[in-house]
């Protein structure tokens, strides 16, 4: 059975994911709205709409789980739960390797 320290971790993770989702969703919503308004005012002549804010929101969504693993890593280190810190570190490393593969493939 996991103790009170673990419930604290669950609350921290819940807050991280909750606010992260709000932030990322808002960025995507703002980006989409601006792009839609822009395309309407320019009418037929729009060729390429500015999607930078939307892209930032999407990047936030992709980074959010990675941040979540980092939060877990720090929590395990703080609790001196080194076995789990190593496991979280491993997951974080694999995730970052994914980004590296994206650069080179």
């Amino acid at each position, binding site marked *: 059975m996991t103790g009170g320290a*673990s419930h604290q*971790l669950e*609350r921290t993770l819940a807050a991280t*994911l909750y606010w992260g989702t709000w932030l990322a969703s808002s960025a995507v919503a703002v980006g989409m709205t601006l792009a839609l308004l822009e395309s*309407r005012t320019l009418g037929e002549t729009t060729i390429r*709409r500015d999607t930078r804010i939307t892209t930032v929101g*999407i990047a936030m969504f992709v980074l959010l789980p990675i941040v979540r693993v980092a939060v877990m890593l720090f929590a395990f280190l703080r609790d001196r739960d080194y076995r789990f810190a190593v496991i979280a570190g491993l997951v974080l490393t694999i995730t970052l390797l994914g980004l590296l593969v994206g650069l080179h493939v």
Partner: protein
Amino acid sequence: MDGWFALWLFATSVVASAVGGMLGMASGIFIVPILTLFGHVGIRTAIAASLVSVIACSCAGATPFLRGRLTNVRLAIVLETATSLGALSGVLLIGIIPARVLFFLFAAILLLSAWQMLANRGDPLSHKAEGSDRRRMLRLNSSYPDAELGRDVPYRVQRLQLGLMLMYGAGLVSAILGIGSGVLKVPAMDTALRLPIKVSSATSNFMIGVTGAVSAGAYLIHGDIVSEIAGPVALGSVIGAVAGARILIRIPKDKVRVLFAIVLATLAAEMLLQASGIRLLEGAR
């Protein structure tokens, strides 16, 4: 035209995700066929967009499960070593697999899901604790509050190695097809690890964000994620998932299950036709 397409993507994702959420499925399994068959989006672009929506749904849905103490975060991080490695392998394979094979694979997963939807899923019987040396060392066994019983129900994690192997496969399929791969996680959670359904739903929802981030991260850096498509799909999926979770209780489940099995099988047939170069459905665009 572009604006309308974005709105269509958004609305479709809201519906797909709400309906998927009602049945405890991720929307990815609907998003990829809808984007490719009706939106005429390339399958790789559809997969990349779907991955973003899978992550978004996982993050949006995790909070109530975590607060309700249903998610086993220790078990999740252990299993994530396998799912993320699977996803990394998938990323390395994606460039090699031809689009036609992707359609075939997707059709197979759709058919499996249809079959699984019809099969009744009950809480696995808890077995007597076998020598739980490693599980005890990792402190994976836990308990969850059951609202119906009004008390904490303890459970034990079984057959971790088999669970890890199935999770590797789930991660691989997730990266290649852009789905949450519930179809592989359900057997891993029920048959191998023998978790109570509430714990397994919460824990696999929590895990899929990280699994998706491995492959979506690679797609993002590589420039495969098209913001005009992934943006409305992700936002629509989040809104649909939150809405779907609230309607969960009110509908007669068995009828919906049968209906869904039919929808999944139809999509599978259409994906198979697409793989063979035949097109029956023509979407509006």
